[in-house]
């Protein structure tokens, strides 16, 4: 009996350890610096994308950068709390189309490729962002 508990205890400790050493997506993306670089890259892509840049004509880019970084941090398991508006609120009035969404995702993929984020981590991030389409589009 004692032997068993020790064994189970050892197993649990191993599990705990392996969990602790396994970096989450936030860490794999390079934590705060990595996410900031990604948002910088995305802003560059948006600025140079004639298809969507007009949506940002009247935006406070400083705020957008800060809120997006905060949101990506929280979403990927980082130590942040998103303090911006909901996705529905912040995108209402822009009538963001499927083509706009595709363009932004394509821009993000370009940035992730450029920053040599692994395909696995790219897919993990896209899995988190893709479903936001229903809250963001055509509002």
């Amino acid at each position, binding site marked *: 009996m004692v032997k068993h508990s020790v064994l189970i205890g050892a197993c649990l400790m191993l599990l705990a350890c392996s969990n602790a050493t396994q970096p989450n997506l936030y860490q794999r993306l390079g934590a705060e610096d990595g996410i900031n670089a990604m948002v910088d890259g995305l802003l560059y892509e948006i600025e140079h994308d004639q298809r969507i840049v007009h949506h940002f004509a009247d935006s406070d880019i400083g705020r957008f950068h800060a809120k997006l970084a905060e949101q990506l941090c929280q979403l990927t398991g980082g130590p942040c709390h998103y303090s911006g508006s909901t996705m529905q609120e912040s995108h209402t009035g822009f009538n963001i189309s499927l083509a706009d969404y595709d363009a932004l995702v394509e821009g993000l*993929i370009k940035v992730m490729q450029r920053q040599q984020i692994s395909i696995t981590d790219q897919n993990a991030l896209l899995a988190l962002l893709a479903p936001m389409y229903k809250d963001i589009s055509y509002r």
Partner: protein
Amino acid sequence: MKTWFFAIALLSVSGAASAGSKIIATGGVTTIEGNAGGGIVPWAVINGYASSNEWSATAFTGRVAINNFTLQSTGVGISLDNTWEFSYARQHFALKTIGGSLSQDIFSIKYHLTGELLYSALPQISLGVQHKRNRDFTLPAAVGAQRATGTDVYLAASKLLFNQVAGRNVLLNGTLRATKANQTGLLGFGSASDKHYQFLFEGSAAIFVNYNLAFGIEFKQKPDNLAFAAEQHWRDVFVAWFINKNVSLTGAYVDLGNIAAQGSQTGYYLAMEATW
């Protein structure tokens, strides 16, 4: 064929030709029947890269070479608004050992009903119609086909699932088809004993190694209307390489079962597609 190679080579290196906003590979490749899909199964995706309020054009040619036959299929398509797909394909089926050939034209329309391949929990769902016309009905009539023209209707559901197998994205597709076609229409439509539509299942599954390269499998259930020879289900394993948004190449190993009483037809499939 040669001009095609030049056109493709030019497009691959230039990469300058404008394409739509859709993400690479989300238009699929073009089936032997001219629809966006895999090699033999039409998917719910709309061909090319036209996203909302955009249009795109596609052209493809593909060749199936199996033990006793070859099938050459060539066609063009236009897509609008990621909603409508209009396409035309001509198939030429050569009976290498028996001699002679079969040929048909396929005019298709696909309408994207609901769902977004990448962005909705619901799969993308599309309804398609294929109108097929034999160009020479002599041989199909001789083996018992009832009509030289036929119309297939299909409902397809496709979904890309992110980060599924070894962190890779997986595409799943299921298609339900109503058809009277014998060997997809190459041997005409229906027979004296089987005049009615049958509902058949087709499926594909693919894994994307990266944005440009996918490996997959396909299955296509077939009817068996003609008395002169048993018709069997089709299957294949394929690799699709999306070189850029203008060019893709597809290769497959195909197993088309028995065709026209010629046993075990296996071989390869090669296709290329250009998109603008």
